[in-house]
């Protein structure tokens, strides 16, 4: 099997997924690629040892063992790039998610994350929160200034008594309609628990 085919599976997973959507973390393939990296490293070391035992200068001799080392090295670097790109592109989706839905990970996303990604999500949202409280500005709200500070919404999911950021409480029973402050409603709409009514 050609080197790096496992790693390209991970990259294809990102490429074939719908844009901006997370797929479950492929921990099996991920650790297989890491095992492949260790194998390349071991092969590389044994080729170096072989040259040293023959009394050759490892840095200047360009024989067939040297080129073998080169190929193992390149494969290692390639695998690393694939792994990094996999993590990086998932982390990017997560960062966007923090801005959209706030500090709680929605259930359907939670099950797709690895342990370190959950940790990353938590820390990123904490950092964002502390920054916003330092500059005293709510940065996650809609960028377009509203024509009306209030909007009409319909509740899609039974939530019961809820305390709103503007210090009111409201009873969000399923299918009930409310007239809310825009800033209060935004979070629930992006979580899919409410929809905006127009007209």
């Amino acid at each position, binding site marked *: 099997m050609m080197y790096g085919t496992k790693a390209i599976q991970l990259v294809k997973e990102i490429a074939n997924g719908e844009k901006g959507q997370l797929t479950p973390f492929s921990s099996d393939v991920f650790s297989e690629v890491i095992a492949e990296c260790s194998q390349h490293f071991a*092969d590389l070391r044994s080729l170096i040892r072989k040259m040293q035992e023959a009394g050759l200068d490892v840095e200047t001799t360009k024989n*067939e063992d040297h*080129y073998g080392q080169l190929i193992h090295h390149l494969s290692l670097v*390639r695998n690393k790039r*694939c792994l990094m790109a996999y993590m990086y592109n998932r982390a990017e989706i997560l960062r966007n*998610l923090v801005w959209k839905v706030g500090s709680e990970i929605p259930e359907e996303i939670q099950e797709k994350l690895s342990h370190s990604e959950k940790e990353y999500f938590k820390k990123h949202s904490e950092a964002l929160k502390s920054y916003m409280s330092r500059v005293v500005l709510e940065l996650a709200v809609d960028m377009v200034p509203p024509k009306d500070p209030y909007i009409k919404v319909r509740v899609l999911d039974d939530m019961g008594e809820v305390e709103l950021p503007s210090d009111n409480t409201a009873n969000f029973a399923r299918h009930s309609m409310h007239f809310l402050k825009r800033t209060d409603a935004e979070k629930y*709409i992006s979580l899919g628990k409410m929809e905006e*009514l127009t007209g």
Partner: protein
Amino acid sequence: MKQRLYGAPSFRGREKVMEVLKCGRAYHYQEENQANSIYLDHESVQEKEGCIVRKVGSFLKMASYYDIDDILVEEQRVPVVFQQAVNGVDIDPSAETHCVEPGSKVELPYWLAHELHLRKVAKMKVPACFNQRTKLELGADGASVDLRSRCLYFYEFGCKIAPLVGDRDMGSFLLSAFRTRYQKILAKAHNAAFTAHSKLLSYLTKEETNLFEAAQSSMAAFKKWRIGGPRFERASVLGRKRKEAN
């Protein structure tokens, strides 16, 4: 960014054209250089050539370390002929030992072939998707050639290959192919009904599909803006809403 596509050629499209141009130019520069230095000894010419090739190579490569498409471009297979013997690797499927003999022909992914080519361990050959037949077909009726089945990353791969395999027409060939196809894609994306797309889409490379989708989404955004609608929507990252059981 996507909205800009409506009407005028997009920024992305132009970027692509520039990239293709750069490739062509880089090759000509290399050739000129070679012609000027006829009186230099053979080795220094080779060194200069290698240096330019490496510069172009690293310029294209460093574009985006984390870019998923760039990684997939570099996974494309290239036929190579080994010039040196290599020990302790399993890349030649026809070999029975863990060695590669000089002169053996192997298909390697670009990321490996390209480094070996620059170090003169193996020599790259023009991949099958840029053969004479494809060139003739693209020259005859570029817009209706099925490039997707030949190479999903036809242009990007061509850009990377061009300075290495010594095909001096590659740059202009890619550019003219892209230009003819781009026109048709844009016209179709703005006009045709959704059902008519599936045939066209099965011909397009990844880059062209992106252009097509950008053009369509700009049309959709324009229509939405004209009709009006709610500003807030469920976050798209959560996926489509599941149908509830009752």
